């Protein structure tokens, strides 16, 4: 399928804001579910968060930085595009690294005997991190799409798409920081 020129830049941006609203709302729902569950249950066991989560956080923030640098460097010139493409690829790679790190965190918990159904706090840990991870994979798909566009040719639609993907990606960062806070404070 030949790449379409894409939606008008403003629509892509609006679209991401709308999507962010929906995702924020769903995590609000998960958060309130967690809060209710925590209040009601004598079986709420606090556990130590796997330390790799903090490493993953740094990785994710680094990927956002790389994405921003790459985004601002995109231009029509081939050399410029190649440089930008490198930063964007770095961002992509760091995103994948984050996800691998999350899986490692899960294995850490499993080694402690904490699985999805073990107790409510571990259940929410898996639910929160899985939900975030799934949405991040969506971000990776968007990033891959933009990577391909930058490699081929830079048109007016490219900036819009890049801006939209970057906005989404930074939102994933912010969401992760929020979740980390929730996990650290309440789990």
């Amino acid at each position, binding site marked *: 399928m030949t790449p379409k020129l894409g939606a008008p830049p403003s629509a892509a941006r609006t679209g991401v804001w709308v999507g962010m609203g929906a995702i924020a709302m769903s995590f609000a*729902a998960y958060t309130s579910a967690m809060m209710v569950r925590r209040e009601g*249950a*004598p079986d709420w066991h606090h556990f130590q968060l796997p330390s790799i989560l903090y490493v993953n956080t740094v990785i994710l923030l680094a990927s956002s930085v790389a994405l921003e640098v790459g985004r601002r460097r995109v231009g029509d010139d081939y050399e410029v595009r190649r440089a930008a493409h490198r930063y964007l690829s770095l961002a992509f790679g760091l995103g994948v690294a984050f996800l691998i790190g999350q899986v490692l965190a899960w294995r850490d918990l499993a080694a402690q005997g904490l699985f999805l159904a073990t107790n409510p706090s571990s259940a929410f840990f898996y639910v929160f991190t899985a939900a975030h991870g799934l949405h991040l994979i969506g971000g990776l798909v968007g990033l891959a799409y933009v990577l391909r566009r930058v490699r081929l040719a830079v048109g007016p639609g490219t900036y819009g798409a890049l801006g939209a993907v970057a906005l989404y990606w930074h939102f994933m960062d912010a969401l992760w920081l929020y979740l980390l806070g929730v996990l650290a404070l309440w789990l």
Partner: protein
Amino acid sequence: MTTVSTPPPVAHHHGPPTRFIQKYIFSTDHKVIGKQYLGLALVAVTTGMVLSWYMRFHLAFPDAKAPGLGLITPEQYLQLMTMHGTIMVFFVLTTAPFAGFGNFFLPIHVGAEDMPFPHFNMMSFWVTLTAFLVLVTSFVVPEGPALAGWTAYAPLSAVGSGSGPGEGLGQTLWAISIAIFCIGQLLGGLNFICTVLDMRTKGLSLARLPYVTWAWFITSVIGLIAFSVLLPACILLILDRVAGTSFFIPAGLVVNDRLLNHAGGSPLLWQHLFWFFGHPEVYIAILPGFGIISTIMPAFARKPLLGPRVLIGCMAAIGFLSYTVWGHHMFLSGMNPTSAMGFSIPTLIITIPATIATLLWIGTLYGSRYRFTTAGLFCLGFISVFVTGGLSGFFLAQPSIDTYLHATYFVVAHFHFVMAVAAIFGIFAGTYFWFPKMFGRMMNETLGKWHFALTFTGVYGVFMPMHYLGLAGNVRRYSSFPAEYMGQALPLHRWITVAALFTGAVQLIFLYNLIRSRFAGEPAPDNPWEATSLEWSTSSPPPFDNFGGRHLVVSHGPDEYAVKGPRGDYIMQADPP
């Protein structure tokens, strides 16, 4: 006579698809997607209606064998009921007036060639269809479909097949289906919002949007928030069912003589999450109807809507307030009784914008030169049934009265009047109004008027008596009525069944009219109703890119009727200033 200008940003530059699959099946054309949604809704409403006939048959003749099903067992009754409610609310009332007509007409109303994300839009239909197929698969799994109602309260819906037939795989499929449905709606709503905000053609300010377009916009925003909460709820329910978690299941439950291994979950949590979605959902079902009536009535009254800004304000207010009232489904649920008053007051206040809107429609009718076409008649019928349905809500909104009326047929009467009747009348009005534009042919007006008159009478015959049943304490979701005090209600149930079967049969007139007109109806002109919004400035049906390459400039509001101009008594939105 329509004015054109330089092109605003457009969604695509390629030509129309030629291959059959791209044209009719996996199409990114919003018009095809709209028709696909309407087709799905038609299949869904037929299924849902047949299910209700079986329910009504059993209620009236509990010991008789139903055609094709034999003697209906209590669990089968509850399964019929659950599927009836689920299919109707999700796949008819959320689909037809919103995803169906909205997808077809929203881009045209704003003067665009398509939505900004056509592939997401296409996905939204196929995702919705997948959800429907997953749901109906539950009819054929060993334990049958879910029986916990469309509300699927935990723990009944969460503990699995131990709690009885209908709570096996069928309930899991229900939760999966609804989760998938949420995703479909989010993809679609995304498109609606971005189209309204970013794709409007030159001159089309928000104030000049047709009222139905406003309604679709507000509905998308409501839906965005609501479905984003239902999706997590369904996921947590699925986890409780298959992964051994206890989000909704407390400790110490003995189901089917077995002490369950769960602990600490909260059944009320499910109710809060569900109704936080569920109440806005019913406004998602009715607001497009508000918009349709507000758009169609001026065209047939030949005068502008009374109080246009007020109407839009009312729709927005209803949308906003819809998020503050969900606890009125839970007055007696065991939540803190003090919060009941906190939910009751906004519930009563929401009556105000609804009343104002109704008065605006009646005020538009006043002094009009009303053209009593079928579409015009359904608008008037909508007003009548919406008033009836709204007034019964007045009782239920008060916790002290709800103590008596909760879970009785009074509630069933209320929500059927506002949803099954009013919202459906909105769909009918939209169908008769827009069929010529969508298919290039006129529907038969004689058949339409018969359809209207018999349906209007029939629905009152079906649902008005349910108020009486409720006042007498007749409990809902019962497959039969062995309690002594409910025995007196049986004759009324028989009447309702006869009326329901009659009204159902009447819909065959509509179905016949649809099919016959599609293939043999009179060819439709561009603007058979002498209406003003942008869809009437293009051919019937519209070309692939909606306006044949033209980019219309809008210089007028959406209901400039009773205005002298070159066309007569109206000026179209795209006419010169």
